[in-house]
């Protein structure tokens, strides 16, 4: 066999090995999920800070956030009408968060470092993010998200964080929507 033939055969083998098809039953079932019942204060923070219409309040993002101050889920709703996030929007936001990186999410809920999640790293600014650094490690917003992921949600710290992102807090109608700790 000539050198050229060998080279061609090798290239063919590499190309052939590079092709793959997914297994017929390759669905991943999440082994662990963060607490849905404790999500609303977290969702409220995400809706306020991340879910504006020019950021994650759009269907063009993988992480889609619905909420009063951004994109609404129901076709009949519009920003601030109704004033507070709906339970259906909470459901969708929860599914969006837990479904982004299902394997990693399970690992985090099972005791892994929350920083394993891309959304946590993007918010902290340790990974490239169109919106830049959103918060810093250990501040109220970061603690709100990570404490929920770690299984000890802190509604009070979430409320503190959300309030810090509320324009005109004394007159903002969203104040009435804050989930009480």
């Amino acid at each position: 066999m000539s050198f050229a033939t060998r080279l061609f055969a090798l290239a063919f083998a590499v190309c052939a090995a590079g092709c793959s098809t997914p297994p017929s039953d390759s669905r991943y079932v999440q082994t662990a999920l963060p607490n849905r019942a404790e999500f609303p204060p977290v969702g409220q923070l995400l809706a306020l800070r991340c879910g504006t219409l020019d950021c994650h309040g759009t269907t063009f993002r993988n992480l889609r956030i619905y909420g009063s101050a951004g994109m609404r889920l129901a076709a009949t709703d519009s920003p601030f009408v109704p004033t507070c996030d709906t339970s259906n929007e909470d459901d969708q936001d929860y599914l969006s968060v837990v479904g982004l990186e299902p394997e990693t999410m399970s690992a985090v809920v099972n005791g892994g470092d929350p920083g394993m999640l891309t959304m946590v790293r993007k918010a902290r600014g340790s990974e490239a993010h169109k919106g830049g650094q959103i918060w810093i490690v250990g501040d109220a917003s970061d603690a709100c998200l990570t404490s929920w992921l770690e299984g000890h949600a802190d509604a009070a710290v979430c409320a503190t964080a959300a309030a810090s992102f509320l324009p005109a807090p004394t007159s903002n109608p969203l104040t009435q929507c804050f989930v009480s700790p």
Partner: protein
Amino acid sequence: MSIRLRVSLVTLLVTLVACDPVQSDAVAALGGEAPGVRRGPLHRPGQPCLVCHDGSLGSPEGFSVAGTVFERIDGASGANGVTVLLEDAAGAKKSATTNTAGNFYVLSSQWHPRYPLTVSISPPSGPAITMQSLIGWSGSCATCHTPPVGPDSAGPVAIELEDGGTPP
């Protein structure tokens, strides 16, 4: 000048002026100028200004924040003389005033805000109106404030609602 250097320079030039098809499509989607309105501060009210005014090579002068304030939420006529007060995440403030088309703009050479921004508008008469949510990263009001009001838009920026009241 050597051939190699010339080729490198041509390649560099071509790279610099290369078209971005996404941006080109976005510009094309805006359509042409309105009849009788020249290019300038009064043109294209209600459109996302930074699609063209993005400061890139060959584009018109770059804006950091720009938009249109209308008299009413139907977007039929611009509101003149409205003061737009912007504040960035670092507390830096910048104001601009709308012209007869309702347009305002802040040049990117004058202000580089750190997002998110908050904004309020003050008409010549009447109370100031504060936007109740943050501006995440887009300097064009019309990125989000597009007609009609719906699940993904609060409608055009206006100083008066259809019922005569003011926005929340």
